[in-house]
């Protein structure tokens, strides 16, 4: 069983799906949509197989390693550990839902190319999450931009192509800066013997401090632009505003995770000393992101823009969790990545439904929707509360873990991070109030409630939020070994005393 290249299959299915969809005869949108959804569903199969055969705490599994470009030391190497697995599962679940949610909406553009690009994006994202070779990672990391770009610029609202260009420039800029570091890794590994890009080989290297720091900066900038983090976040709001909600889901809930995923995998995994060195700065940036994102979100009038900016705040928390360098923080951050994916996806999709119904994205022009569309209002409230970290919903668990770790790192860090809960409550509840409550506006009197398809797309997400809110352990069990493994590189042992971490970071900061 394990000899079979499941991961390759996992990537190949959506990739082939994308090609097939793209090559379908033009003009037959319905067929394209069915084929696309079918392929997305088919992708679930290898993902489920992988998940089912995954042994907890067994390190990297389902590995496939082939020489690719020997002179560069690059390999076609795939594998999953806990971190990768949850990301893969998140991706394969979200994509069919997005497709389903965009079923009618995509008719406005060219449904064939929309579905093809979505599948392409899925394939590339899966490759990113399963790559265990830095070169391969980089290649697919950049390759995700192409489908993403076309999804943004091809579908959505007026001004999207500008937003798409902004998105691409940020990502490309970050990516190329990362290229600098990727090449640097090559040079380092070549100097140490023979060049190899396998993460396992690179992790074994002893890279000197200055070099590490340079490489770290390159990687971090790229991931920060991807995640996004203050001050590289400005593309986020524009993009989510202009793109379709479906696209936003893929971008924010899947693609942006690559950023935080990469920070864990590469910054912490390969460049531990530099990560410690950079921790103070990163933590401060993360805190700024948290507060700034929340405040800006409060002031937004555009629903999609608002949701996009809340993500900035959430990503701040995730990064904070990663860089406080503790077991709790790491696990919390990874779990947060999953939860954020689910809750934000739900928010985006519901917001999309709202916009389709009201014909506007402006909060000021909505109101009283809970009377005409109670189900819509209900699911929006649940998803919103999840995003705000209401106890009993899964983001709460992760948020608490992160906050604990933050307090463990420094009291002020924890204190600032905690404000996020208050601010989140403000922006979510205020938005709910403005859109759902109050008198029904004249022009919105005819709004109908969610139909079954729409409910079906949101329901799994809400169920997951609730279930994981009460039983987070299955996911945490998957995550913890991987996080511990990564943190052990940084010198953090499972559940270390907070003082030690403090000392270690101070040491790093002094250097």
């Amino acid at each position, binding site marked *: 069983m394990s000899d079979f290249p499941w991961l390759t299959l996992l990537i190949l299915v959506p990739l082939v799906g994308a090609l097939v969809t793209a090559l379908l005869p033009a003009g037959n949108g319905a067929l394209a949509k069915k084929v696309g959804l079918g392929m997305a569903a088919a992708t679930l199969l290898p993902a489920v197989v992988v998940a089912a055969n995954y042994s907890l705490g067994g390190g990297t599994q389902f590995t496939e390693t082939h020489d690719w470009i020997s002179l*560069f030391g690059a390999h076609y190497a795939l594998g999953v550990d806990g971190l990768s697995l949850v990301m893969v599962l998140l991706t394969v679940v979200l994509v069919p839902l997005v497709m389903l949610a965009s079923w009618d909406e995509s008719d406005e553009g060219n449904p064939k190319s929309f579905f093809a690009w979505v599948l392409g994006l899925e394939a590339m994202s899966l490759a990113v999450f399963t790559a265990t070779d830095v070169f391969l990672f980089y290649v697919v990391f950049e390759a995700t931009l192409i489908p993403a770009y076309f999804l943004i610029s091809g579908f959505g609202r007026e001004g999207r192509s500008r937003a798409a260009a902004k998105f691409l420039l940020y990502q490309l800029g970050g990516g190329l800066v990362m290229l600098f570091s990727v090449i640097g890794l090559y040079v380092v590994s070549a*100097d140490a013997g023979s060049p190899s890009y396998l993460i396992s080989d690179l992790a074994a290297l002893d890279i000197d401090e200055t070099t590490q720091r340079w490489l770290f900066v390159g990687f971090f900038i790229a991931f920060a632009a991807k995640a996004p983090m203050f001050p590289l976040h400005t593309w986020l709001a524009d993009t989510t505003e202009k793109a379709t909600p479906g696209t936003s889901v893929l971008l924010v809930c899947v693609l942006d995770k690559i950023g935080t995923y990469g920070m864990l995998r590469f910054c912490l995994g390969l460049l531990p000393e530099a990560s410690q060195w950079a921790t103070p700065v990163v933590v401060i940036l993360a805190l700024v992101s948290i507060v700034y994102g929340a405040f800006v979100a409060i002031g937004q009038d555009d629903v999609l823009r608002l949701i996009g900016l809340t993500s900035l705040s959430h990503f701040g928390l995730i990064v904070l969790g990663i860089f406080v360098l503790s077991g709790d923080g790491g696990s919390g951050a990874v779990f947060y990545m999953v939860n954020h994916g689910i809750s934000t996806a739900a928010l985006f999709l519901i917001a999309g439904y709202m916009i389709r119904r009201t014909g506007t994205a402006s909060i000021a022009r909505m109101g009283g929707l809970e009377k005409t569309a109670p189900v819509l209002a209900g699911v929006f409230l649940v998803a919103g509360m999840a995003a705000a970290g209401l106890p009993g919903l899964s983001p709460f668990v992760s948020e608490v873990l992160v906050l604990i770790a933050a307090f463990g790192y420094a009291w002020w860090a924890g204190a600032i991070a905690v404000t996020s809960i208050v601010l989140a409550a403000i922006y979510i509840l205020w938005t709910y109030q403005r859109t759902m409550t109050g008198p029904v506006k004249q022009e919105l009197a005819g709004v109908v409630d969610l139909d079954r398809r729409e409910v079906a797309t949101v329901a799994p997400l809400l169920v997951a939020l609730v279930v994981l809110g009460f039983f987070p352990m299955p996911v945490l069990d998957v995550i913890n070994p991987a996080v511990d493994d990564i943190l052990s590189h940084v010198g953090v042992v499972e559940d270390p005393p907070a003082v030690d971490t403090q000392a270690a970071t101070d040491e790093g900061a002094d250097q």
Partner: protein
Amino acid sequence: MNEFVNPTVEYFELSPLLVVFAAACLGVVVEAFVPRARRHLVQVVLTLLSLAVALALVVVVALEFSGGDSDAVHGDGAAYGVVAAVGSVVVDGPTLFIWGLVLVLALLGAALFAERRLEAGVSAFSGQASAAPGSEAERVSGVERWEHTEVFPLLLFAVLGMLLFPAANDLLVLFVALEILSLPLYLLAGLARRRRLLSQEAALKYFLLGAFASAFLLYGAALLYGYAGSMEFGEIAEAVRNRTDGEGLLLVAVGMLAVGLFFKVGAAPFHAWSPDVYQGSPTPLTAFMAAATKVAAFGAILRLFYVALGDDRTSWLPVMWVVAILSMVIGTVLAVGQSDVKRLLAYSSVAHAGFILTGVLGVQSQSELAIGELSSVEAVLFYLTTYGLMTLGAFAVVSLVRDAGGETTQLSRWAGLGKESPLVAGAFAFFLLAMAGIPLTSGFVGKWAVFSVALAAGAWPVVLLAVLMSVVAAWIYLKVIVLMYFRQPDGDAPVVAAPSAFTATAIAVTLVATLVLGVLPDPLLDLVASAGEFIR
């Protein structure tokens, strides 16, 4: 007076050169004695055939070399080959690789030259170059459907120069090869069938600046000869190693040589000619010239600077740094405002020259390289391959987009091309992505290669800048893609003419190569690695 010794010539190793030369001469005879009606056919067959034979001979020679030694010797970058024709020409691994590359590009270029369907049955070259534009003579030549079939022998002569240029092991041969390469190109640049004034201007500009640059090269060569007392690279290297005085002379000499060579590759600040020439020249020529000239010239740069001046690295590396940075910045920044596709590509080629130079300045001595690590020669050769193929392909696509006045190179007229002809627009977009260095295209692997050698040699500022410029460049290419796909055409849309098999083949080959080299570059990299080092 020394006793005269008959020089020996290694005919076998030089056979690709000789075949091309013979075919070029034969082409002249064909021009003189074959009736006009049959000339085109004969010339096309002769040109393609001779280039293919030469290519086959390159392979044969390469096999012969590897047959003598074990493969292991070639794998680790050791030099092999012969110093031919009494020390004036070197046939070694890199030479053979560049020969092969130039010949492939020449084959594709010749295919573009042979294209006749786009202009309704005549070639893209002027019917009668001597007829003044707008004159009665020109009208007659148009009505009679005359063609200049001389372009084929001229092409072959240029190819001959390009083969000789990177193989030159002697300053004199270097100079002569440069001229053999350049002179036919000057003429060809002025032979466009449409927009003849532009074309003639391009030829004049190219010629005057080209001659100016070669004068610099020559004076540099003279000074270097004055410094070393010999024209041969080996002896120059010897002198550079051993002489302690005359630093100033050497510095000036190297500087002037560099000016000449940088001009040929179109590196800033010696790039002024390239946008005008690229734009004015007939597009098939632009395609061939942009690709092959750069390959040959960089081959020569590599050999001159690595072999002859390798021990004087400290004095020329800073210059390379500056020129590489300038080329990247100027090429990219000036490309931003361009409204003409050919000019845009021209500026991008300036930037590419900078990228390749980034590879060149990543030179390290053999001892500094880890086993299996990419060397600068390998990186540059690989980049040249990818660059040559994608540039040729891009220009070939340009030649397809037309309206009543011939080719439509105005960018604004390309709006909506993606709907008009998704295939052609797609191909062009792909080439642009490759130029931007997006992964899974050959451009990415090439960029990776040159950046990594530069970084390994400690040129991180250049690499950093190169990376930043790549972002800007990507934005520029993106604008074109957006234009083609997301913009409505204003006015009547350009028509994509159906090309004949010639152009179609050229585009298909370059497209496939760009993709394959992006996804599976290993075979080519192995080939580059087996080319090994220069013979010193």
